[in-house]
């Protein structure tokens, strides 16, 4: 049983995000990138399945860019067995990213593809369905539990309002992971360094992305600030305000 986990870097919200001069994208000068939180959960869920004995091999895969190597070596230090980075292009959105991964995955063997349910930069959540569509296999998103038996997997999918669905899915399948059974683990730096010295990241060309991006950003702006808030000293002050506003 082999899982390929797709990873993506997103802007780290520890920095104040600013829109650049074009008004259409983020100013990336001072942005720090980090692994998308949901992808970290996808990786953790895969590692937990491997530790339970249900899965034999995990490969981490990501598009090449600043910090990609370290992110992939960290994935290996946590428990992945190998890593692949996609070169030769710069996918502009989920559709192009899905095409890029699908091109490379077409020549790979796997039983399951894990992605994070969405990435915090575009909140699109379409990568899994797009890959499922290209590679003709089932896709379940918002997954919070995976059990494997033979050629099928039993998947727990979360719905809004606290509902939970259970699916039996034929493998291979694409799963968009919402949450692993435990918080993503920490990779000790000495382990990451050891991996960097002893292993390498395999490069694969992402090939033809097929078409230009089908959506474009018209404008980007931070949310408008409200009028602010006022801290009141006591209940009497609150009553005065409510009287002023004609509420009471």
């Amino acid at each position, binding site marked *: 049983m082999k899982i390929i986990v797709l990873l993506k870097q997103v802007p780290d919200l*520890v920095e104040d995000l600013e829109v650049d001069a074009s008004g259409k994208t983020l100013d990336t000068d001072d942005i720090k990138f980090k692994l998308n939180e949901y992808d970290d959960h996808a990786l953790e869920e895969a590692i937990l399945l491997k530790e339970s004995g249900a899965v034999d091999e995990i490969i981490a895969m990501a598009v090449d860019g600043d910090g990609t190597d370290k992110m992939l070596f960290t994935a290996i230090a946590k428990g992945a067995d190998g890593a692949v980075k996609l070169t030769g292009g710069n996918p502009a959105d989920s559709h192009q990213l899905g095409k890029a991964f699908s091109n490379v995955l077409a020549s790979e063997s796997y039983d399951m593809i894990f992605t994070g349910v969405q990435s915090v930069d575009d909140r699109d959540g379409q990568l899994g369905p797009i890959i499922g569509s290209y590679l003709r296999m089932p896709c379940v998103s918002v997954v919070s539990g995976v059990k494997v038996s033979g050629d099928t997997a039993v998947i727990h999918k979360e719905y809004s309002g606290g509902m939970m669905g259970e699916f039996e899915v034929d493998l291979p399948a694409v799963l968009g992971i919402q949450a692993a059974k435990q*918080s993503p*683990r*920490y990779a000790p*730096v*000495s*382990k990451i360094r050891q991996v960097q010295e002893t292993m390498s990241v395999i490069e694969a060309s992402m090939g033809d992305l097929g078409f230009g991006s089908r959506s474009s950003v018209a404008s980007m702006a931070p949310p408008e600030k409200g009028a602010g808030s006022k801290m009141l000293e006591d209940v009497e002050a609150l009553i005065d305000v409510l009287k002023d506003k004609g509420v009471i």
Partner: protein
Amino acid sequence: MADHKYEKWIQKDDAIIDGIDVSGEWNKMYEPREIMNYDLTYMDKITDLDGGESMGWCYQCAQCIGVCPVDNVGSYGPRKIYRNLQTGQNLFEHPDLWLCTTCSNCLRVCPKEVDMMKIMPAAREQAVLDGNVPAELQDMLQNVAEYGNPMGESARKRVRWLRKFDEPVRDLSKEENPQPVDVLWYVSDYFSFHGRGNDAAKSMVRVFNRLGVDFGILGKEEKCDGDSQRLVGETGLFEELAEHNGAQFEKYEHNKLVVSDPHAYNAFKNFYPKVTNKEYNVQHYTQFLAEQIDDLTTLMKQPYPKKVTFHDPCYLGRHNGEYNAPRTLINAIPGIDFMEMFRCKEQGYCCGGGGGGMWLDGLVADHTSERLSENRVKEAIEVGAEVLAVCCPYEVSRFEDAVKSTNNDGKLEVIDIIEILDYCIDNGDGS
């Protein structure tokens, strides 16, 4: 011996005590049978570690127990750890692994030199590599690995405390062609990011400026010193931080490194050289200022007529033998009424923040009757102090919390020595 008064109940044909079969003739007790029947797997694993050897030297005299700050509020200490290992306990997966604050008081009294300051990091490193890290500690390690500080703040925000602060400070990371400085001041995480630490950092700047010290800071290029990370077993992270900070010390020409934090002092003086192969001319700020005590005394006009006691930081005192410098500064404060606590200098009580304790509050709370910091503030109040002076950036936040959690709010003020000096020179921030 047959008529010995205990003979009847010592001699048992069938006896299993603590899972160990001690059946048979009474005189079997003279044979080394019991100890050989224990599972020594984990004892051997500890003593086989590089740094773990001395765990096996313990001969159970228990001198450590009397001085262990954790035993004072629970049941702990090197002797007990040894005994538990001897009876087969897996320390690598036991909470005891994380309770030691590496305060070094046990080593001070140990006739066998069982060194928990080496045993704990070695054993914890194995636990870290195996993924057995308490969740609260994991968050801290993740933050330091990603952002270079335990708070998980952006590196750029390390100098945010300088905003709207009109004292001159040279941030060397912002200078195009940085000229040499006499003093490179390592500000440290808590002085940079913690609100009360910011107060002390500003005091340091004012005192430096009044003394005419030519100093600069690393700004956003400064990262956590890594000493606590080393002590919780994250050796790789410590090495990465030592390489980073070591490279900054090389980059910016200076005569002397002055640090706010005893943990940084310990790291730069004793452990960075093993990573970077460089020696550092480093002083804790109390040492640096104590050398200028005459100038300081002249500058301090404003009296500070309060009853003050002082908490020795473990990493300045026991670890590095500096007890006088902070006291030199305190005794020079005009109008001060200084009193020692019962446990002071070599016998100083640990605040609980060292060795990773700063980020293990939940785990420690589950295994102790009160926080070490709570025990300490009670002592300060008991000796009649109204101010607890400190000189480690961990301590203001720890002790201020402890004052509140022991219902002593308003009875004890916690303040860094540098803030008192600043008050006496400049009346603090003017308020």
